[in-house]
């Protein structure tokens, strides 16, 4: 497996020992909080509502079993026995004590991990599809390209003082699992008519305060033109970007203000100018990275065990149908382990669960683990004949929930149960919705449905791209939940539209239930998904389900 080259042992150890000294000086009073705060933030340490929180990076969501075990050890020794996987492919520990944090950072460094946060107005971590290197629909593993982009952008002299932070996401598949249209630059691998591999380049997407879907700036970019083209985009934005207003500095606003045609013209001009300077060294580096990320060898084996379990065990069958995705190699599957047991906190795993997942990966999954932005854990290479064993072990550990992609596979940010920026809670809403759909036993009938919840306008729960999005707000000192409908984070991306007035904490779960039941009545056939029905019918019938009194009144007025 590739060992992340950003991890420079000496550098990380040096940073930990510096931080250890800083913590000591903070505790003995020689550093003020104003002096200390930027130092702790750089080391991933935040102060939340009830305690500190340590955020640890998981680059490309790729983890090895021994790293997962170390996370379990940290959770038990210095936290409360669990960790929270976030929507940004990080793990957060919610209860570390300030004096213990340097020891935790050392324990992370022991397994080549760190909590160092890239900060400032630079090109941030490149994110990639969590099925990378395994998916059946994949043209190529996007991680080598992601790593090439990271190496190129780190310390690039032109890009150290950008107008604002800049995020790139990449998927190697036409089916977008990396939300590329909600990033500053999104790269989606496609083939042109001649069958050659290249990228669809998307620019100017983003969520948060001003959500925007990225626009296609180049439909097909040959692979070898990638670096100069991305450099051309960043360099055009570097000149045009609004440095006067933090809220208007992201490239989504630049694209919005100048129009995609104008941006395209400028980028293509700049690209033509700088292309000759790229001699092909980047392609040699890329070839090396591709070898490093190579898929483990996956031998052909008999499917016997799988087929009999699939026929005879309905619980296994349901799990296998929802949680196992098509692998590029026949006979193998990609297992998504749901961290969304009904009524539990989305994204949380106990230390025991972490160790079990590490053991399974080691014994039956070629020692690979991935973390998805949808807050689940993935074993990317499992032979189908091993699936019954994997499922049995997961079930025993409370990890066997068959709900991936369904109504209870909810993304929720920590919200006001932990986050100091929150305007309302998210977790209890997610728990209650999941429990309700489980009581009604309807989620398998309902099928593919993405519900996403954020506890404030920062949109860490990606609510804008949920088929049903929920945004928690503070309305005159009371928690209030606003619903958006019709969002989509995939290749057919769209931003959800506000349905109407918000709901109180007591009303929000019944409102979601009405919405789901209305969809079951409205759909044309069992195979029409929620988002398809919504696109066919528009918001009106869904709003009528959400606001029956208003609908009633309108009918009366019209009569």
């Amino acid at each position, binding site marked *: 497996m590739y060992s992340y080259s950003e991890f420079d042992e000496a550098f990380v150890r040096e940073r930990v020992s510096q931080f250890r000294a800083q913590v000591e000086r*903070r*505790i*003995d*009073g020689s550093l*003020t*909080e104003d002096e200390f705060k930027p130092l702790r933030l750089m080391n991933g340490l935040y*102060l*939340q*509502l*009830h*305690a*500190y929180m340590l955020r640890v990076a998981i680059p490309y969501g790729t983890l090895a079993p021994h790293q997962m075990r170390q996370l379990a050890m940290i959770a038990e020794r210095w936290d*409360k026995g669990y960790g929270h996987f976030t929507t940004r492919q990080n793990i957060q520990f*919610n*209860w570390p*004590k*300030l*004096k213990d944090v340097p020891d935790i950072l050392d324990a992370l460094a022991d397994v080549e991990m760190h909590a160092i946060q890239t900060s400032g107005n630079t090109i941030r971590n490149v994110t990639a599809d969590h099925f990378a290197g395994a998916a059946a629909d994949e043209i190529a593993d996007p991680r080598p390209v992601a790593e090439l982009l990271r190496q190129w952008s780190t310390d690039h002299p032109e890009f150290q003082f950008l107008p604002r932070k800049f995020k790139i996401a990449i998927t190697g598949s036409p089916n977008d699992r990396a939300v590329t249209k909600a990033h500053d630059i999104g790269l989606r691998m496609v083939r042109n008519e001649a069958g050659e591999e290249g990228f669809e380049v998307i620019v100017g997407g983003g969520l948060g305060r001003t959500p925007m879907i990225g626009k296609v700036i180049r439909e097909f970019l040959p692979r070898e033109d990638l670096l100069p083209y991305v450099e051309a985009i960043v360099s055009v934005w570097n000149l045009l970007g609004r440095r006067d207003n933090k809220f208007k500095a992201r490239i989504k606003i630049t694209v919005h203000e100048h129009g995609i045609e104008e941006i395209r013209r400028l980028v293509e001009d700049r690209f033509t100018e700088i292309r000759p300077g790229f001699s092909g060294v980047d392609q040699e580096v890329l070839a090396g990275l591709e070898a490093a990320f190579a898929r483990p060898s996956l031998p052909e084996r008999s499917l016997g065990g799988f087929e009999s379990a699939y026929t005879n065990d309905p619980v296994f069958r349901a799990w296998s149908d929802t949680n196992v995705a098509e692998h590029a190699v026949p006979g193998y599957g990609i297992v998504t382990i749901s961290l969304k047991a009904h009524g539990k*906190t989305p994204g*949380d795993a106990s230390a025991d669960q972490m160790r079990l997942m590490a053991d399974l990966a080691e014994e039956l999954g070629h020692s690979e683990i991935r973390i998805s932005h949808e807050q689940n854990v993935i074993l990317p290479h499992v032979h189908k004949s091993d699936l019954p064993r994997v499922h049995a072990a997961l079930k025993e550990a409370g990890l066997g929930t068959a709900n991936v992609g369904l109504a209870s596979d909810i993304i929720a940010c920590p919200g*006001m*149960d*932990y986050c100091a920026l*929150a305007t309302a*809670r998210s*977790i*209890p809403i997610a*728990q209650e919705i999941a429990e309700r759909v489980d009581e009604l036993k309807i989620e398998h009938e309902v099928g593919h449905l993405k519900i996403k919840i954020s506890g404030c306008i920062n949109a860490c729960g990606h609510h804008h791209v949920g088929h049903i999005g929920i945004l928690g707000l*503070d309305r005159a*000192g*009371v*928690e209030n939940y606003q619903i958006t409908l019709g969002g989509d984070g995939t290749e057919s991306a769209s931003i959800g539209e506000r349905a109407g007035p918000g709901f109180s904490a007591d009303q929000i779960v019944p409102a979601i239930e009405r919405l789901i039941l209305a969809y079951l009545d409205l759909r044309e056939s069992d195979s029409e998904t929620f988002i398809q029905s919504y696109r066919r019918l528009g918001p009106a019938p869904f709003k009528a389900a959400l606001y029956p009194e208003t609908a009633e009144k309108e009918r009366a007025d019209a009569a």
Partner: protein
Amino acid sequence: MSRKFTPKVVTGNALIEGDAVWLTEDDRWTREMSEAELIEDEAHAQMRLLFGQSQPSVVVGVYLADAKAGLNGPEPTHFREDFRTRGPSNYPHGKQATA
């Protein structure tokens, strides 16, 4: 015409644990909001805030939060401050664990 002053408490987070704490009348930091000093006067509130902020080796992020008088002492008026007196709602962690 001056608006009526909403009573306040001085609050922040303990430096080592990060736990929510409140300032008492006798200059201690308590983990129980009910033991806090309820401040009914604006000028006094500013003075107590400055006092709280002058102890950076004990408490972090000191601010004034709205409060009201309750049977056993000051009580929160806003849900955020209410959560701070208990802990998260998804686990029995934080203050509610020891209460």
